């Protein structure tokens, strides 16, 4: 599986393989020899086939800023585990479930409230430990399945969210 970089909203798949003293860049079915030589202070010399260009490259986390031939490009590495994760359609992930049997101590949200991923929904107590149940995704609270004091079994649905659709 090739690496993917997001550029201007589109994923571009490519792969780098070794070949003698140079690399081969694989894009689709084509294969181009290339070398990249550091010249200090983010400046590199990029040679593709026989053409050399001066290029400035700066990385910040998964973002790669490239300045080449008077233009600036922002590339973002798109991890295949995230690219192909079925989050947007996986409804099971929009339900906060009980990790263990216990009782509800307090509820922090109301039905219809909009919540962000990681936001506290309710606190449960089990085996003398208090656990905060957080929103598994961004969305709005559709159903609160329990009230304060109520007990439940492991894996019981606690809160169902309506997943916030990602802006296209």
């Amino acid at each position, binding site marked *: 599986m090739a690496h993917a970089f997001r550029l201007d909203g589109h994923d571009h798949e490519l792969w780098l393989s070794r070949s003698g003293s140079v690399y081969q860049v694989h894009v689709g079915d084509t294969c181009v020899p290339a070398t990249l030589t550091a010249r200090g202070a983010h400046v590199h010399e990029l040679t593709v086939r026989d053409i050399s260009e001066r290029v400035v490259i700066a990385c910040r*986390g998964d973002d790669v800023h490239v300045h080449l031939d008077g233009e600036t490009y922002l590339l973002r590495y798109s991890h295949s585990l995230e690219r192909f994760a079925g989050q947007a359609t996986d409804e099971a992930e929009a339900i906060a479930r009980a990790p263990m049997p216990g009782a509800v101590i307090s509820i922090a949200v109301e039905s219809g409230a909009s919540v962000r991923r990681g936001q506290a929904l309710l606190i449960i107590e*089990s*085996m003398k430990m208090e656990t905060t149940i957080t929103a598994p995704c961004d969305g709005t609270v559709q159903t609160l399945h329990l009230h304060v004091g109520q007990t439940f079994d492991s894996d019981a649905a606690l809160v169902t969210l309506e997943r916030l659709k990602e802006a296209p």
Partner: protein
Amino acid sequence: MKRIDSALDTRSAEFQANRQHNLALAEMLRQQQAAVRHERPARDMERLERQNKLFVRDRLQRLLDPGTPFLELSTLAANMEYDGEVPGAGIVTGIGIVSGREVMVHASDASVKGGAWYPLSVKKIVRATDIAVENRLPMVHLCDSAGGFLPLQAELFADRHFGGRIFRNQAILSKMGVPQLAVVLGHCTAGGAYVPALSDYSVIVRGNGAIFLGGPPLVKAATGEEVSADELGGCDLHTRVSGTADYPASNEFEAFAIARDVVAQWKRPTKAEVEWQEPEAPFYDASELYGIVPRDIKVQFDMREVIARMVDGSRFHEYQPAYATTLVCGFAHLWGYKIGILANNGVLFNESAQKGAHFIQLCNQNRTPLVFLQNITGFMVGRDYEKRGITKDGAKMIMAVAGSEVPKFTVICNGSFGAGNYGMSGRAFDPRFLFMWPQSQISVMGAEQAANVLADVKLRQLARTGAQLTAEEIAAIRDPVVADYKRQSSALYSTSRLWDDGILDPVDTRNALGIAISAALNAPIAAPSYGVFRV
């Protein structure tokens, strides 16, 4: 390997309150450590100066390679014993770099009671030699001790892991081909005389250094012979006549120069082969750990947030992410070393214990060292769970932990209660190193529950006599029990008695584990083998 996507809200009131709490604890730890390391009564420091001796910290500085890390172990040992008058149990131990080689250092602190061995001093030295044996670490002993502390001799002499164990371990190290060097900077009396004698190499300082089974007063009492310490067991006697010590040194500075030159002759170890890649700093800031660990031990937190602030690039390959979610298992790299992590995200259920046992077996097949991150109240209780064999499943996990051949490292991040401590590689299961975080607690059960049980027993005894107790009277019985129990489950109490290898500021955990893993790989990793799993 994908980066953990942190869901931590660093602006929340909860985060800020936890941060305040844990920062204060870290600051207190820093102060306590600084005091143990550097603060001594003026008369003790003056005595050292008069004797022309360096303070133990200055000795370490002379011995170790400048600019290299020194992982000091059990700095706060004995902090709750002997009226707090024996800082660090009078001994400094740790892993450091001498002439480019990883060594275990054991140094007497002559500024504390003349370097006398208290029971916990002996325990600390035994632990240092145990670490050397388990990890095949060469040792450097800096000897300057008045000998065993006689009033407490019953607690340091005769038992299996008392004084004799130091010398037994030294002999075993030599037998294993792991070199040791003793630098005799003061007296080595009685048992202590065997430390240089059992080392493969020894340096002795002219004037101050002396090795003898019985010191001048004892000799006079026994035979009437009057002899000075130097005549009895000094530098020239031992390096020219008896051959008990190897290298004479005219002063401490020369002694350390010789010591470094001796260590430079040792062959470098072949490390056990494990997966390694170029290290990468964690993506998330380690200082956010202060806001993650809750100030109330009853409050659960997501251990993935801790992992994200400890491992390379915050990358984590989670194994069985949807199954038995109260035990988080997965692979990561730490300072480049591939590790398998087991971390508690709640009580251990049947399937969590099975998942843990299974994952430990995977790591043993894979030759991947294991890191246990503890925050555990125990195994689940109740008829349903017993019916499904919770005890049997817990036994599987304990069997896997105990039988594991890859090195194990344990960090107690918060609670460590009951059998959960066993399943998660507590001290009894020989993790190569075990560290605690300042806020953590360790006991057979939680303080509140245990204190209630203890107080209830007392109250019932009183009730049987027909006494009617007021709420105040009940509190008067219960409160001291709670206070005492809490004290005895604190990290400071644990580290005082060497149930661990030291308390870590959470932000230092990554570096401490990096040094620990590197040290552990001096020992080869055997092929996987276990006892019988009750399936």
